[in-house]
């Protein structure tokens, strides 16, 4: 049933090279307070306004795990069918930096809370069940984020903002299962989609609440794994793909020129689309990991895990398949509507309202609603530079418009105009139709008169039509509709024309 993904190869001077990619994604856990303190976590707050005594590592302060952060990590693990480790433990990763008040990050090296799981990706938007691949997730662990240095506040000193210090992160570590930039992009988008469905991370890469460390190596097909480099903190899907593209080609060039890849940490420069060395393995830190003696092992009760499981929403793949089977949508439309949880939510609200207005089951109006959403509404919003989250129209308002089409009050053509006016004014569809007199007319007298006028004005074309040039029928429809300012019921125009021409 499912096709495999085509091979991605880099053509080198010595032959084809395969690229091996693994991603470590840092996802900020959605939670009102930090991993080990009660301080708030809102984005964009005044520097150092969300810092507790614990976050500032004052003498004698102790971490206490935040239950909500643990819950979100477990829910995320369950959402990717991962093993949940009922016994996990926090470790200290020791290093000195000004944005790290404790002098160590509390993380989970030895015993992560989530073990082996998997994420299914697809490279075919038209049919998401085709060209699929399963990407292994080795583990998810929770850890503290660091603060932020500000270098532009003082001529000779750097300032530290500790608002982010201690915020909870999930580190989601994939297996080195990806083989192309496209696969890595699909994995990241799918992961972000799942996180947003679950509600454990807002996936907002621009604000830094999701970022990826990109591990890349190259090898001749069938060879052992090559030496990898790790490009840190890449903060968009596009940049991750560019990192892989550049890094893989760079590595092939180095090897083919007789050089060796050194295991090192690199940085991606978005301005040039290239990576550069940050530090090599030789001067890598010795983090002196050891179990955090301030914290007891984290033991999860079965009930807690079950509560987490029960709280999971329908996830994107399941939802997409349900849209296909229960609502009869095409795989493509179902894929578009379920890729982002906000889209699915919007669609389901629209579907509910539309079905209610029509007094029909969801499945009967699903096609109309989904087609309108995908082919009309997204385009119109896009033109305004808006998305669903900033849309001036809510699902109930859109349902009103769809109902007007469905019950013949307006035609599809008029509906486009009404939509534009709704977006511009924020007014309701019905009000716009009444105010602007856009109601579709089924007045057969007026339609007949208009048809007669069109036929009278175009005797030559009537002649040609009757002579067999049937394509001209559309011309007569168009002329009649134009004469009636688009408001005539198209079925009635068709009928009148057929009768008078026939």
């Amino acid at each position, binding site marked *: 049933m499912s096709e495999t993904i085509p091979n991605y190869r880099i053509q080198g001077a010595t032959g084809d090279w395969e690229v091996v990619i693994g991603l470590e994604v840092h996802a900020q856990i959605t939670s009102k307070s930090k991993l080990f303190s009660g301080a708030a976590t809102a984005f964009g707050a005044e520097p150092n306004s969300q810092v507790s*005594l614990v976050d*500032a*590592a*004052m*003498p*004698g*302060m*102790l*971490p*206490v*795990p935040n239950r909500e952060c643990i819950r979100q990590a477990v829910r995320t693990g369950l959402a990717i069918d991962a093993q949940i480790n009922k016994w996990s433990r926090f470790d*200290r990763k*020791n290093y*000195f*930096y*000004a944005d790290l*008040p*404790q*002098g*160590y990050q509390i993380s989970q090296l030895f015993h992560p809370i989530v073990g082996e799981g998997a994420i299914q990706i697809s490279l075919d938007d038209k049919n998401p069940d085709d060209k699929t691949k399963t990407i292994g997730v080795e583990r998810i662990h929770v850890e503290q984020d660091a603060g932020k240095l500000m270098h532009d506040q003082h001529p000779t000193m*750097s300032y*530290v903002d500790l608002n982010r210090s201690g915020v909870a992160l999930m580190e989601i570590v994939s297996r080195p299962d990806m083989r192309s930039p496209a696969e890595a992009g699909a994995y990241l988008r799918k992961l972000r989609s799942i996180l947003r469905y679950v509600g454990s991370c807002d996936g907002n890469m621009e604000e830094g609440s999701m970022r990826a460390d990109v591990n890349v190596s190259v090898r001749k097909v069938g060879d052992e794994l090559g030496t990898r480099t790790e490009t840190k903190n890449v903060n968009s899907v596009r940049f991750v793909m560019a990192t892989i593209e550049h890094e893989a080609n760079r590595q092939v060039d180095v090897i083919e020129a007789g050089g060796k890849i050194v295991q090192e940490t690199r940085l991606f420069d978005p301005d040039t689309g290239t990576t550069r060395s940050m530090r090599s393995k030789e001067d890598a830190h*010795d983090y*002196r*990991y*050891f179990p955090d*003696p*301030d*914290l*007891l092992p984290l033991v999860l009760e079965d009930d807690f895990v079950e509560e987490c499981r029960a709280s999971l929403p329908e996830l994107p793949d399941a939802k997409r398949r349900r849209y296909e089977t229960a609502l009869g949508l095409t795989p493509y439309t179902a894929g578009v509507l379920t890729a982002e949880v906000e889209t699915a939510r919007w669609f389901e609200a629209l579907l509910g309202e539309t079905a209610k207005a029509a007094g029909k089951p969801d499945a009967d109006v699903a096609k109309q609603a989904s087609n309108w959403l995908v082919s009309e509404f997204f385009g119109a919003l896009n033109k305004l530079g808006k998305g669903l989250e900033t849309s001036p129209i809510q699902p109930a308002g859109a349902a009103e418009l769809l109902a007007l089409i469905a019950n013949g009050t307006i035609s599809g053509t008029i509906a486009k105009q009404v939509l534009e006016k709704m977006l511009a004014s924020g007014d309701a569809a019905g009000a716009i139709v009444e105010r602007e007199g856009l109601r579709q007319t089924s007045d057969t007298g007026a339609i007949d008169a208009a048809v007669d006028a069109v036929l009278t004005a175009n005797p030559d074309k009537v002649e040609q039509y009757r002579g067999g040039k049937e394509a001209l029928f559309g011309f007569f429809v168009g002329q009649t509709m134009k004469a009636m300012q688009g408001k005539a019921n198209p079925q009635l125009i068709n009928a009148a024309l057929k009768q008078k021409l026939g």
Partner: protein
Amino acid sequence: MSELTELGVAAIRDGVSTGTFSAVEVAEAFNANVAAAATLNAFIVTTPDKALDAARAVDANRAAGKPLGKLGGVPIGMKDLFATAGVQTTAASHMLEGFIPPYESTVSGKLWAEGAGMLGKLNLDQFAMGSSNETSYFGNVISPWRRSDGGNAALAPGGSSGGSSTAVSARLCPAATGTDTGGSIRQPAAFTGISGIKPTYGRCSRWGIVAFASSLDQAGPMARDVTDCAIMLEAMSGFDPKDSTSLDLPVPAWEAGLNPDMRGKKVGVPVEYRMDGMDADVAASWEQGIAWLRDAGATIVEISLPHTKYALPAYYIIAPAEASSNLARYDGVRYGLRDLPDNAGLQDMYAATRAAGFGAEVKRRILIGTYVLSAGFYDAYYTQAQKVRTLISRDFARAFETVDVILAPTAPTAAFALGEKSADPLAMYLNDVFAVPASLAGLPAMSVPAGLNREGLPLGLQVIGRPFDEQGVLNAGLAIERRAGFTARPEKWW
């Protein structure tokens, strides 16, 4: 009024409660003793006004017929490892000199809530690392005790709670807080002829106590006798949601449960603690302790704690490992000392700050700890030490299947002279040999005075109990106390 300073915790509490004397009179008397004892260097800062304010509040409550608290009117000394809001908290380090926390440690807060007042912040070994108080940045505490040989050698008050032991022993306060990581309550108590108990790990919240080694640090009281320790411990203990390692158990009424009758109890005497070349006076005092407990009705059982000899090496891996990480926060960035040489970068600031802010012993332990956690050595040191720790806990668990408490000396010698061991860290570490095993196992353990050695210096006996059985420890301690009749005290020379 000087006789008020002869009173202990229970007597002061009862006297204030019955109106025999006022809390202010008590505070004034102790304030005067503190002021007159600057030579002993027991306090880093004194807070006579705090003591008086608390006393006035207690007197006012009494006048108003309100409850006075478990420690109403009792002024105490606070080890300068406990954060005290608005009062300098240094851990006896240059690093935190001048640091005034905006928060109060859980334990000190509980004591104030029970009506205690603060006479001052007590000196200690820097970051609680030491057994003689010689590592304090603010100069060593001098024990009030002197040898009976007529010499005036200044003696160590023990460590790290040496300010606490000296202050209680010299009648500068009726009780003090201590902390015990590897004997820091028990050894100084033994050196100065007072009582001190380290409860089960987790009984007292660690929140607001400057951390040395998190898995071992435990607060506890030091006082003149077992009853006073019980009263203090009741006020200091209790579950604290701010400390993940805090025990979520009710606090027993230890004072009310005190009972020196040891009939039906079994007392274990570990053969491994009988070491070659043991100090004869210490060995004799241990024998005396055995006889006293037998006299109190206990059955004496010889037990084996086979991994005892590995306890000290394991301790000196685990404690420095944790310390090396716990002390990383003192980096000059946010509070405390900052040494910023000209044109210094971040790394230079760290180096200069930590070089200037930490004393030699603290640096030694940070280096040891960093080494044992480093890549390639972790398994050989830290992992092995943790295994040893498990074996030591198991030794105790096995022993406690047959015995109720264990009796041992607190320290291998009586107090030594200042300077005598400071050049030899290993000799210094050996002083903790009897104290460390109970710390590694997280067990409640206390030291009570047993008598004087031939030099006229106090010796302590140590009682180790099952987890959570502070009552059993206190009761055995009380049985010893009743029979020892220890009334010796240092002659005032300061």
